[in-house]
């Protein structure tokens, strides 16, 4: 089994899907000859031809609208948006069209489009190459939203997404593109949408998170373990539909929860996790539900390292709710 970093696992998923199913095509800015700016589609144009893997003009509304039309006519398009920060020119196609086609047609028209896009901070990308903007999509009924945190999951979730009958926004934490590596099986396998991964069992505090912050949470857990602090970590993987049962179970067990996300706080998915708990299991809670999030600013360049939650901030939150 080859050991791959996430971006290669994603490439492997796309290639596996293309080998399996003629309906799968992939396109976007620089996706063809260049193989994508992160090389997620490297070599696929050579292997599958320019009709199946190709460059598009620089126009995200066009790309996503084009993908929708393909899906309506029987293809299984994967559209790459170069950075999720550049998805907004296509936001109308996502919110008004992709998310609502099945509903508005009374169930007649399915639009199985997958939009893959590099997501998240921690790479000194400044305001426009760093955003964690998943909340906009989670608030949008009709979409599914996925964020893998490991190479294995990335491949399995991407295959599941392309095979899913509903549109999926597939966020790829670019901070994790090249490390860590992991053994990734060849060929087809899926990781089901909607199911969280218990990264680590614990009994004192639950950290509910996804993407690259899974690793920050793990560092904190490692650091505090010798002090006898036992942290449970849940990697949600799918944010819509999220694994409500897993979240509730963990909160019931520990009674102390941190919702940990890169995005700015208000109306973030951290708010959702917290509200979901406050609505359903408040009687189990022994402390405030802490949200550790990005600051409520655009994403800064120079101070990149301080923007998304750090070990220090998460540790502080853990200690605070334990001391509560």
């Amino acid at each position: 089994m080859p050991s791959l970093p996430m971006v290669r696992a994603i490439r492997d998923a796309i290639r596996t899907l293309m080998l399996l199913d003629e309906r799968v095509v992939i396109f976007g800015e620089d996706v063809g000859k260049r193989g994508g700016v992160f090389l997620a589609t490297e070599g696929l144009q050579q292997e599958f031809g320019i009709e199946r893997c190709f460059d598009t003009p620089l126009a995200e509304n066009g790309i996503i609208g084009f993908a929708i039309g393909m899906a309506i006519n029987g293809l299984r398009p994967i559209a790459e948006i170069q950075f999720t920060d550049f998805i907004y020119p296509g936001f109308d196609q996502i919110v008004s069209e992709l998310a609502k086609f099945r509903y508005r047609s009374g169930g007649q028209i399915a639009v199985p489009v997958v939009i893959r896009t590099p997501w998240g901070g921690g790479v000194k990308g400044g305001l426009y190459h760093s955003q964690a903007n998943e909340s906009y999509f989670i608030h949008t009924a009709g979409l599914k939203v996925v964020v893998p945190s490991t190479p294995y999951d990335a491949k399995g979730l991407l295959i599941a997404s392309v095979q899913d009958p509903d549109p999926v926004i597939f966020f790829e934490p670019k901070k994790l593109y090249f490390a860590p590596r992991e053994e990734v099986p060849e060929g087809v396998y899926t990781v089901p949408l909607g199911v969280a991964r218990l990264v680590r069992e614990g009994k004192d505090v639950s950290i509910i998170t996804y993407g690259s912050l899974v690793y920050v949470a793990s560092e904190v857990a490692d650091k505090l373990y010798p002090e006898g602090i036992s942290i449970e970590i849940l990697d949600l993987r799918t944010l819509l539909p999220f694994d409500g049962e897993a979240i509730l179970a963990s909160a019931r067990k520990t009674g102390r929860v941190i919702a940990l996300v890169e995005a700015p706080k208000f109306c973030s998915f951290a708010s959702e996790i917290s509200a979901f708990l406050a609505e359903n299991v408040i009687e189990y809670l022994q402390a405030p539900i802490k949200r550790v999030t990005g600051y409520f600013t655009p994403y800064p360049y120079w101070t990149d390292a301080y923007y998304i939650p750090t070990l220090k901030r998460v540790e502080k939150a853990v200690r605070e709710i334990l001391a509560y």
Partner: protein
Amino acid sequence: MKVQSFELKPFTEESLRILDEEGRQVSHWDHGLTDKQIVELYRLMWVTRLLDERTLILQKQGKIAFYASSAGQEAAQVGSAYAMEPQDWIYPSHREQGVFITRGMPLEEIFGHFMSRSLDPARGRQMPGHLGRYDLHLITLSSPVSTQIPQAVGTAYASKYRKESSVTMTYFGDGGTSEGAFHEGLNFAAVFQCPVVFFCQNNQYAISVPLNFQMATKTIAVKACAYGFDGFRVDGNDVLAVYSVTHYAVQKARSGQGPTLIEAVTYRYAPHSSADDDKRYRRPEEVEDWQKKRDPIKRLRLFLIRESILSEKSDSELLEQLKEQVMQAYEIAERSPHPPLASFLEDVYAEEPWFLKQEKQEFVELYQEEYERGEK
């Protein structure tokens, strides 16, 4: 009509036409239509007009909450839709009653949709006018203007990808050309040489905004210049000309020669929608002028009578019959039930996720009574 022998000039300021306002043939293009087919075009335009008239009445009676009329634009809609084959894909815009009728959507479904009955393929989800029948390759429209344009290009790409011969047509208005999606869609079509036809009904207004506040070009057709393919301007109230130009563009697309933009110059008689008051922005005389002098149905009628393709008598018989047909369709729709009340909680996803199951259950519990009424 053979594509090769048909000589059309792109980018003219004048509109291409076959019939003048009096139904006199002023040019001799071989449109290839039989008399029977021309009568069929006539019939379809009348059905569209009658459906429209009936719907406006129902709207005023409060039986339909909202309506965007197609009156005045029948030639553009029917003529263009008639130039397609059943396997061709259609992405309509928001006042394309004539397109739906021409493609064969049953009138009772259209009325059913207007009144949110179970006959509505979209189960009452959308405002009147937002029709669609996937099996007829009529893609259910949305309200946002021009979103359908890049979608149509994607659908055309998929046909080309599978080496099928189907063509995709997308409709939009003069207003729709101002949106970025118009630009992106046309450019994609050009780059990928997709079998797609862009059909613009230039009815002079985007709600209240006249052309000169929308654009500074003399025509809409000229905008195709910016993408490297042809744009044609056609008299949109001349159904034969509309058919001919569209048929040419469809065949061109079908034979692998890429996209075309068509501008059909026309006019809407009614306010933008039942929520509009057009007296605020246009003079009644302007409307009357179009109605009296340039009506598309009247024009074809004059032609048919003059050419003895249709007699006065069979014309009035036809009209009576169509009125009857429209009325019956309406009555069928009227008698049919609404969809189940709680069905608005379905079709968000292929399978209901846990939270929608919960919401539906709560809804049903709370509104059981109404729900049961709805079920009937």
